[in-house]
């Protein structure tokens, strides 16, 4: 099949979130299909400033197909016409969060969220019929919200929806009724989106595929002089990811005199308080990441909104138990399905659950092993790709 994968930004140096998910899925689909990535020239998802040159390029390690000279994924980039007005966006976001946005303001929210790439929309309008299926990632971005209706008869949406106020806006009910099929990341996301107008469409819950974790080189941690034991937060350090609450919970935990370190690995977009037991590492490379996941006693996931936690799956891939925010239905659901960790809803529960994991080392290890077994059951690439192929055939 000739497939297009539409995503708001794409690049070898863009790893996380829906962009990373799109890239992994596209690379694996490229083994069987003719895949084109349709995206913008932006690298920065806050400003949408143009960074990459427009036009066609090749990215990634996909081997060349028969008759082709170049390997890699075919990428079509279109320029962003207007950078995001952050103040306007914040004001509209407040209206949406307060459930007071008019239908015009709801549509404005999507426009202002961006990226505003009219040439990308024009490409879909003119050439969309040339693709057998067009897969769209992340409903909240303008390229998807305005682009999907242009090729609705062949569109498959990967909504990456979270239980935030946006999902309840009225404008989404007619939007979610348009795609021919859906690829969901978790059963919780499927329930959420189905309740907003997607019920009855062909769909599959795929999550994301993982390869078996390679043995980590623990010597990469020597120069970091981390305490033993430590618990790990991995990802962007941001209040929206629950990090302010995590730091608050952990500071209360540390007041009890327990000698365990919180290691926070990832780029920070918020101040991290100076604390003898909190250790920010900033961005870490893949080898350090693997070593941290191997050596940590538990992964902590404080995010209140998630459509799928890839970091959680990675932790289980290393047999690491998790402690997650129970207020996020997706995280709690993942932990309960896997029997792979514990959850907390407030500071007192955080303290009790972390104590439990540290005091019951064998039970904690068993939770980690059960997490790994869950990844083996649900998230290995052949299993994930087979589900996608079945949906591509069914739509």
């Amino acid at each position, binding site marked *: 099949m000739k497939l297009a994968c539409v995503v708001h930004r794409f690049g070898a140096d863009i790893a996380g979130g829906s962009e990373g998910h799109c890239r992994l899925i596209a690379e694996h689909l490229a083994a069987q299909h003719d895949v084109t990535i349709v995206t913008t020239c932006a690298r920065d998802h806050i400003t949408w400033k143009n960074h990459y040159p427009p036009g066609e390029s090749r990215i990634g390690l996909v081997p060349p197909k028969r008759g082709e000279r170049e390997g890699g994924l075919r990428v079509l980039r279109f320029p962003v016409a207007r950078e995001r007005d952050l103040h306007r966006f914040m004001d509209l976001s407040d209206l949406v969060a307060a459930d007071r946005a008019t239908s015009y303001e709801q549509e404005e929210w999507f426009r202002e969220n961006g990226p505003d790439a009219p040439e990308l929309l024009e490409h879909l309008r003119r050439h969309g019929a040339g693709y057998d299926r067009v897969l769209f990632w992340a409903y909240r971005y303008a390229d998807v919200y305005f682009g999907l209706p242009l090729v609705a008869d062949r569109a498959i949406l990967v909504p990456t929806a979270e239980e935030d106020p946006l999902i309840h806006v009225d404008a989404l009910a007619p939007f979610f009724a348009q795609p021919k099929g859906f690829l969901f990341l978790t059963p919780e996301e499927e329930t959420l989106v189905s309740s907003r107008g997607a019920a009855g469409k062909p769909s599959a819950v795929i999550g994301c595929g993982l390869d078996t974790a390679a043995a980590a080189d623990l010597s990469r941690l020597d120069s970091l002089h981390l305490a033993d034991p430590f618990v790990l937060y991995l990802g962007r350090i941001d209040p929206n990811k629950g990090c302010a609450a995590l730091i608050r919970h952990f500071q209360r935990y540390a007041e009890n005199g327990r000698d365990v370190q919180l290691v926070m690995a990832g780029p920070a977009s918020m101040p991290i308080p100076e604390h003898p037991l909190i250790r920010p590492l900033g961005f870490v490379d893949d080898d350090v990441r693997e070593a941290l996941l191997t050596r940590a006693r538990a992964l902590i996931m404080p995010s209140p909104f998630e459509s799928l936690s890839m970091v959680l799956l990675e932790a289980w891939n290393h047999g690491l138990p998790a402690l997650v925010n129970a207020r996020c239905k997706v995280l709690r659901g993942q932990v309960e399905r896997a029997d792979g960790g514990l959850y907390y*809803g407030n500071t007192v529960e955080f303290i009790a659950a972390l104590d439990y994991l540290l005091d019951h080392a064998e039970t904690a290890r*068993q939770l980690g092993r*059960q997490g790994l077994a869950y990844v083996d059951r649900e998230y290995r690439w052949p299993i994930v790709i087979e589900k996608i192929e079945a949906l591509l055939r069914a739509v």
Partner: protein
Amino acid sequence: MTEARVRVDAVMGEIERDVRARLRQHLVKKGGAADYQDEEIFDAVHALLARAIDERNLDALLLPELVDGDVDWRLQTHLHLTTHRRGLAGRCILFVKKTLLLPMTRWLFEYSQDNFRRQDHLNRVLFACIEELALENTRLRRTIETAASASVGKPAR
């Protein structure tokens, strides 16, 4: 896997029981409600409030709809600049507000906005708690009335 499976719900049940016990002891020690000396009462109150906070959709509550009369009680966390003047004068005033005054005062607006958002969330949580209590009260009233009407027809012993 040869080891016995660890059930998360069982472990969490144990942890949550322990947390409730510690919380109850803490409140009793600090002079909280005397009724909390009764574990059953504490657990029932805890469950009711937890239900209001965790299980209710804070955007779908009855009380805010009823309060929404002549006075707008809702915190406005978004910025909306207006003027009562019409025509060119109005447009000039709005231009000055947006291009000169707003950039100068934006830091103050954004500084206070987080606190307003927090207060807004707390208001909605309190609405949810009140609504949960009203529901509980209504259910109890119905149970009592049903029991009372059933007992009317029974012969006295």
